[in-house]
Every structure is written in C-alpha cells, then in structure tokens.
C-alpha cells in the first residue's frame, strides 16, 4: 500500500511539474495576448483614440455677439441691451423634468405661458447640453430663492443674459419693430453657424430690416467639458464681432410731438427731410409696448392687442391704405400744366356740382353752393372739386397714372422699410385686370379728387410731398443714417420728376402756400401765427359713399364711418426742411383734423427745437 503510494507520488509529481510548466507557458502566452491587445490600442491606434478622446471632452461653443444699438439722429438711444437674469434648464442634467418644474413653481411664479414656450423650445432643434430658458427677468428675490435651493435643482441655472430693451416704449414700436425669440422658420433663413447661440431675431421694422447688421458675427470657443457638459475651462476662443450700432434719421422729440398731436385718435404721421430722404418721424397710433414681445408676450396681453377695435398692432403709416382725397390735387394740377390741358388762365365755373353732357349724374363739390369762377391756384387753395373733375375728365386716366406714379404712388420706393404696402394707383389695365371692366369717364372724374379706386399709404403721401418740395428731385425715403458712425450715402432712388417748364413747380407750390396762408386757404386756420411759410394740401377721404342727393353729416354717423382727415405739406416753402403726411382716421376733414397735427410737427421741427436751430 505504502510502496504503491510512493510510486504514485513520484508519477503524480512528475505529471504535476509538467502541467505547471505548461501552465506557465499558457500564462505567458495569454499575457502576451493582453500585451499585444494593449499595444495595438495604445500604440498602433493611439491617434484614433486620441482624437476620440479629444472629441469627447472638447466642445465647440458659439459665443453670441452683442446686438447693435439703435440711436436716433441726435444720439438718443432707441434700442438698448439690458443685462437680466434668466432661469435656464439643461435637459440632459435633469433627472426628472416634471419634478424639477414642480419644485421650481413652488419657489417662483411660473406662468403657463412660460411653461408652454419652454416646452416648445425644448423640443426644437438644439445642441445637447444647451440650456433652454424657462423664465426671464428674474427678480433679485427670485434669484435668491433659487440659489438657496440650488442643490435640489440639478440642471437648473440662473444665467446672465442681455435682453433687448426699448426705452422709448410705445412711441417707436411701429418704426423700430422689435426682436423676439427666433423661430424654427427664421432659423432656416439664416446661417445656422452664425445663429447657433442666438435666441432673438428682429421681427419687424428697423430690427427686422437690419437684422443681419445688428446681429453681428458669432464667435466660438473650444471648451473642455465633463460628461455632463459642465464647462471646466476654455481652451481656445475666437471673439465674436458685435452687431453694428446704427443711427436713424428719426428725431425722437419730433416723433413724440407727432404721437402727442395725434393723441387718442387713430392715425399716422410720416415726416421726411426732403434734402436727404431721411425719415424724421414715423408714427402710427395707437401703438403697443414692444418690450412685451422680446421674451414672449403672454396670451392675455396678446389677445387684448389682437382684439382691440383700434388694432394697435396695425402699422397705419406703412400699411394703412387710404383714399388720398384732395391731397392729390397738387400732383394732378402739375400733370394738367405739364400736359397743357390747363394753363394759369384756365378758369372753370363751379356751381357746386359737375355734370357730363348727356348724363344725369351730378358730381358734387364739397362746397354745396360752389366756388364760382376758379383758376388752378384757387382750385388748389380752396380745394375746388369741380375744377379737377373737369381737368380729370379732359386729361383722362393715363397722364394721371403716369404723373402720380412718378411721384411714387402705387409703388414701393423706401430704401429700408419692409412690410409697406403699395396702395392702388388705378389705370385702365388695372381696372380691366381687377374688375374686368373698361375705364369709364366717371372713373377719371373720381380719380381727379383722389376718390374711387385709388389708395395710398401715409408713407407714399409723405414721399410725394417730399418730391414736390424738392421740385421733382427724388431722394428715396430711408431710416438709416449711419452704420457704426459711418454715414450711409448713395441710396438708390427713382428717376427725378421732370416737367417742361420749371415755373410749373413754382405755381403749384405757390398754390399750396395759398392753402396755408391764403385768404380762402382750406388750412389757413392751422397756419395762423407761424414764423415760417409752409405749403400744404388738405384732403378728406370718404369712408362710406354718399348717395346722390344725400348730405354728409358728421354728427349723425357713427365714428368708424366718419371721414378720414388727410394732409400733406412741407416747410419752409423757400427752403424745405421737412415734408410730411398726416392721416387721422375718422377724424373728419383734413383741415380740421390733420392740418393742426402737421402744424405742431412743423413747429416742433422748425421752431421748437433750439438744438436743431443751432445745428442749422
């Protein structure tokens, strides 16, 4: 037994030694396999994994450029950037979004609008680990309450942000426009790289038109982040190019005077410097606070704006289309002179109405008893309709269309104004196309006093007045004055209006001066006591047609059906520095409603502002 075990023991040991040596070899081989694997990863493939590792930790982040500021002609700030604190959430760092939102709403007030807009943007196209704003303009109290509870709110940050602020508020909303949250649609129209960090986009007005300029160029920084996207350090940085600061021709004081002059009434004022085309004032009332739109307007406020019968969101100065009424008489008169249909000696008997031969229809004059014998100058000064009925009938539509078009009616001539409307300048082709009817002589008669089909915007009327003031020389209306303090010149303009005799201008302008200063001038009441001479023309646009034999009685009809009062003019007559158009909706006649507004604006610009006087 013992001997057998001893023999076995020897054999066992020999087997065991062999097996152990084999084990050593196997271990050696397998360690070589491991070493080879690590050699492959660490030495052979090192570059590949190095790149992967860098891509992991390094992120390219956009740096949003600071939006350019907007000033008026005197350096008054119209659009500012204000530092505010916003509550933002990084989705990837929040474990339970619902719970986080619930605990946040326990701390600070979060409106359903905030939530809705947050959720919408949360699912928009975005980079991972990009923060999404939940609430803007936090108060110090709110910041403190969030800070105290920070440890409970992973992924929630309070971020400093520059937010657009319009210090002048309502008065400039229609001219400046506003910025708002950039929409998915707007993102498609811009360079995505340049806008990758941008949250706001110019929606309307100057902000909209000069969006690209004001936005600037985004910068970039390479940052090292951990797996949660937290920035640990900045590795490389390309500074952003801030948006350009621009200044406008707008005169803040003048704009405010125009707003005040219109008061509670619906209307528009557009004032232009005829020598430069610079728009001095662009007012539409009522207006709205553009600051409401910057971070997103709440539903209730928006509903209120939308449903207001005065439609404050409607830009009357650019989009309001009104029959020009008698304000077109100077243009028609000029056409009459230049086409030699009338001359200074031409007179017409006005019995209070006009009748075509063989036609029963009577075209009334606004003055029931008529003006008696009138020449062109008197016809303009007193706004005699019958004289122009006769001229319109004899001239026909083609010259009227032609001359009016050359003054900018029926087209868009402004250099940097979007969203303006073209109005309607009727012609034979237009009527056939739109109404399917031929042009009737009655249409010419209506057109001659700015009624019928013709529609114009306050901007077009002001432009026409400026071209008149310039005696046909065109300067396209524009808002922009300087970009980064460099003057903007060489704005493309339509062709100048040329007439056969230079004195035609003098004659028409003299007639317009009579409107203001003449004994029978329709706006003489508004020129009383003026230190300067002005040229103008009133107009009254009918809102409802007055039937044959009926009388217009302002007191008897509801306000919204009352006539619109219109006015165009410029001053001083000899050296025009301001041309303007005023429309007062449902204000009654041009002389009673619109001309006084114009006078206030003229006064403010030519007399009231000592600063301006000093500058000239």
């Amino acid at each position, binding site marked *: 037994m013992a001997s057998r075990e001893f023999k076995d023991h020897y054999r066992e040991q020999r087997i065991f030694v062999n097996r152990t040596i084999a084990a050593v070899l196997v271990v*050696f081989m*397998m360690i070589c396999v491991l070493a080879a*694997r*690590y050699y492959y990863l660490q030495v052979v493939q*090192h570059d590949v*994994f190095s790149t992967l590792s860098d891509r992991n*930790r390094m992120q390219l982040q956009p740096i949003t450029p600071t939006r350019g500021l907007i000033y008026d002609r005197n350096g008054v700030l119209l659009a500012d950037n204000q530092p505010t604190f916003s509550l933002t959430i990084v989705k990837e760092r929040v474990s339970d979004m619902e719970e986080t939102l619930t605990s946040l709403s326990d701390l600070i007030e979060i409106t359903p609008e905030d939530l809705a807009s947050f959720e919408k943007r949360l699912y928009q196209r975005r980079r991972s680990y990009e923060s999404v704003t939940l609430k803007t303009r936090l108060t110090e109290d709110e910041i403190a309450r969030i800070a105290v509870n920070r440890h409970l709110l992973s992924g929630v940050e309070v971020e400093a942000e520059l937010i657009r602020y319009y210090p002048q508020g309502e008065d400039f909303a229609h001219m400046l426009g506003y910025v708002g949250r950039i929409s998915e649609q707007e993102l498609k129209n811009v360079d995505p790289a340049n806008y990758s960090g941008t949250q706001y986009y110019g929606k309307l007005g100057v902000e909209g038109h000069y969006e690209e300029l004001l936005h600037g160029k985004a910068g970039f920084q390479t940052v090292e982040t951990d797996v949660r996207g937290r920035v640990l350090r900045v590795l490389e940085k390309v500074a952003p190019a801030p948006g350009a600061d621009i200044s406008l021709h707008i005169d803040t004081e003048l704009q405010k005077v125009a707003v005040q002059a219109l008061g509670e009434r619906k209307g528009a004022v557009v004032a232009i410097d005829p020598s430069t085309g610079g728009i001095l004032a662009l007012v539409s009332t009522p207006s709205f606070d553009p600051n409401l739109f910057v971070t997103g307007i709440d539903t209730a406020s928006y509903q209120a704006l939308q449903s207001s019968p005065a439609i404050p969101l409607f830009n009357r100065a650019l989009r309001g289309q009104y029959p020009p009424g008698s304000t077109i008489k100077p243009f028609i008169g000029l056409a009459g002179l230049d086409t030699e249909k009338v001359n200074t000696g031409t007179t017409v008997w006005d019995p209070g109405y006009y009748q075509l031969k063989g036609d029963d229809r009577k075209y009334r004059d606004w003055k029931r008893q008529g003006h008696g014998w009138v020449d062109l100058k008197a016809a303009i000064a007193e706004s005699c309709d019958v004289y122009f009925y006769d001229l319109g009938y004899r001239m026909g539509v083609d010259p009227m269309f032609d001359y009016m078009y050359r003054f900018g009616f029926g087209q868009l001539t402004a250099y940097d104004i979007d969203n303006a409307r073209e109005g309607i300048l009727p012609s034979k082709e237009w009527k056939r196309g739109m109404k399917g009817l031929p042009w009737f002589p009655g249409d010419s008669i209506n057109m001659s006093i700015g009624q019928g089909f013709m529609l114009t915007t306050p901007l077009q009327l002001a432009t026409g007045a400026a071209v008149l003031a310039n005696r046909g020389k065109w300067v396209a209306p524009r808002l922009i004055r300087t970009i980064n303090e460099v003057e903007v010149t060489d704005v493309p303009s339509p062709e100048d209006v040329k007439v056969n005799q230079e004195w035609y201008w003098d004659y028409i302008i003299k007639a317009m001066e009579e409107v203001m200063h003449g004994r029978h001038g329709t706006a003489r009441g508004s020129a009383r006591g003026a230190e300067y001479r002005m040229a103008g023309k009133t107009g009254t646009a009918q809102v409802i047609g007055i039937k044959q034999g009926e009388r217009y009685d302002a007191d008897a009809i509801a306000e919204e059906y009352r006539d619109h009062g219109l006015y165009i003019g410029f001053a001083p007559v000899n050296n025009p520095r301001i041309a303007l158009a005023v429309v007062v909706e449902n204000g009654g006649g041009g002389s009673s409603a619109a001309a006084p507004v114009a006078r206030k604006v003229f006064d403010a610009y030519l007399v009231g502002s000592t600063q301006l006087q000093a500058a000239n």
Partner: protein
Amino acid sequence: MAQGDFIRQLPGAESHFSRRPGLSDVIHIDWPLLVLLLILISSGLFVLYSGSGQSLADVKKQGIHFIVALVLMITVAQIDPAVLRRWAPWVFLLGLIGLVAVLLAGADAKGAQRWLKIPGVGARIQPSEFMKIAVPMMVSWYLADRTLPPSFKHIIGTLIIVAIPAALIVIQPDLGTSILIAASGIFVLVFAGLGLRWILGFCGCVAAFAPIMWLFGMKEYQKQRVLTMLDPEQDPLGAGWNIIQSKTAIGSGGLEGKGWLGGTQSQLDFLPESHTDFIIAVFAEEFGFIGVSVLLLLYAMIIYRGLYIAMKGQDTFSRLLAGSLTMTFFVYVFVNMGMVSGILPVVGVPLPLVSYGGTSVLTLMVSFGILMSIQTHRKMLPR
C-alpha cells in the same frame, strides 16, 4: 520601485527560509509574495484615487478592506495545509448551504440574488465569492487520495462536485461567476493530470455547447454583452458606451500615458465604472502602455510565484489547490483586462486587488494566505 530587487531576491529568499530558523518559524509568511502583493495593492490605491474621481473616502475604505484582508491572509497562512484539507468538505458544505440560502432568501442587489444578510451583524456576504476558494479546496481534497491521473469515475465525481455550486450560481443568475468557479474546479483536474484527450474533448464540448447556450441558456442581457463586444458601435450610447469609452481611454493613453490624475476620459467622467470593473482603463490612460506592461509584469510575477509554490508543494492536496488558486487569479486578470480592452464580453469581473470592492479583496487575500500556508508549512513536515 526597482523590479530587479525582487528578481534578485526570489531565489535568495528561498534558501534563506529553508536554512535558518527565524521569523518564518514563528509567523508563516511568504515574503516574496507579500512584497509583490503590497506593491500591487499600494499602486492600486493610487489608481483608485484617480478612478474614483479623487475620492479620498473611497481610498480609505479600500485601505481598510486591505488591512482586514491582509490580517486575514496572514491568519490563514498560519493554518497548516493538513488542517485546510480536513476542513475542505465542511467548508464546501457550508458554501453550498449559503448558496441555497441565497436562493431562498437572498437580498436583492441589482436584479440578481448574490448576497446573504447575516441577521444581527448587519453585514452581507456573498456565498458565490466564498465558493471561489471552497470549490478548489473540495476538488483538491477529493482528488488528493486518488491515484492520479484521475480515472473516468473520479473525473465524473469531480465534475459533479463542480456542477452543483456552478448550477446554484447560474440560477442566481450569475453566469460569469459560475463559469469562473467551474474553471477553478477544472484547473484542479488539469493539474491532477487530466488526459489531453479529455482536455481537447472538453474544449470541443464547450464549442459545441456554446450555440446551445446562446439559444436556450443565455438571457437577453448576456447575449447583448457578447454582441456589444463584437460591435460596440451598434449601440454607442447604450450597451456599447462602456466599451467605446474604455477603449478610447486606453488608446488615448498612448505609450507614456497622460499622467496620474491627468486622464481626461476618467477625470471628466466619460468612463463609467472607472473605480470598479473598468479601473484598468484609468490606469492605461494615465500610465500608458509602459504602465500596462509593468502591471502585467507584476501580475506575471505573482502568478509565477504562485505556480512555483504549487510546484514545490509537499503533498498532492497542496499542489492541486495552489495551482488552481493561482490559475484562477490569472483568469481574473485576463478576463478583466480582456473585457475592458474589448476582446472579451463584459462580465462583472474586477481587476484583482486594484478594483474597488471588499469581497473580492478578501477572497483573493485568503487564497494568497492558503498559498503562503502551503509554502511556509512545507519544510516543517517530515520528508
């Protein structure tokens, strides 16, 4: 640390202990093994500091694990292998009872039942971890009295001994541990002289069995792990994330590494499980291929020492047990480093003595205690 010191010391230390009575007669410690382990443990703590996000608390806790484990190792080293041999069946039986208890009342941890709460004490133990030592002990005990190479009957007997705990662990379910425990038993058979035909046949069986396992035996998540290993890009943010990030960490380390605490993958938390199963990726990222080579050398030396002890073992039980424990240790190293570098599927195997975790450290140090016991009690037995 100069490697040369140990290489020089190894043969010298041997003769030193066999010639002179001294400290080794009073306390049974295998000094070369102890020194190698201490180097591994202390460098492991530095890596752990980096891999745990520079958490000194984790390092302290792991340090306590090591102190307890070292005390336990030295305690076990004092026990005569003959005693271990006598205890083997009872240790095995205790382990089996533990496994059954886990199945009946196991505390749930991460979906699999592996832990057993000891009432009153508040501690939890993992019977499957305990089996990593109990199975080789039992198989060594079983084969030590037989004529070797083992006969067919004894091979079957061994397989039954291995299969019972393996089966109990599979249904926990913990396939990885089950396979490793089965392997530790099979290693005993191999050292005992299992015929080459058997070994080849066994490998053939595994190869044939694999598709069957794939179809019927493996759970969805286990299949996913295999698929992920084959193509991590398939699901780069889900199952593939770990392996992509660990390969990136290893590869970006390059030859010289990014320096201690300089690994961006680990320090910036891109690497998951960076202080436990994937700690080798932290090490490879920060110390590069040179560091990995040194670490592999260190492991190789420990394994060599273990196999040397096994070869010098006094009796069959000691030799089989020492060989099996050493090879099991190697398998852990290989599987961990293989899975993290993407050549093996991800199974929950820590890097021995470097990964954070108390249980694995205790088990490993007890097995080194057994190796020390085998080495240091040898000369006291009469030839």
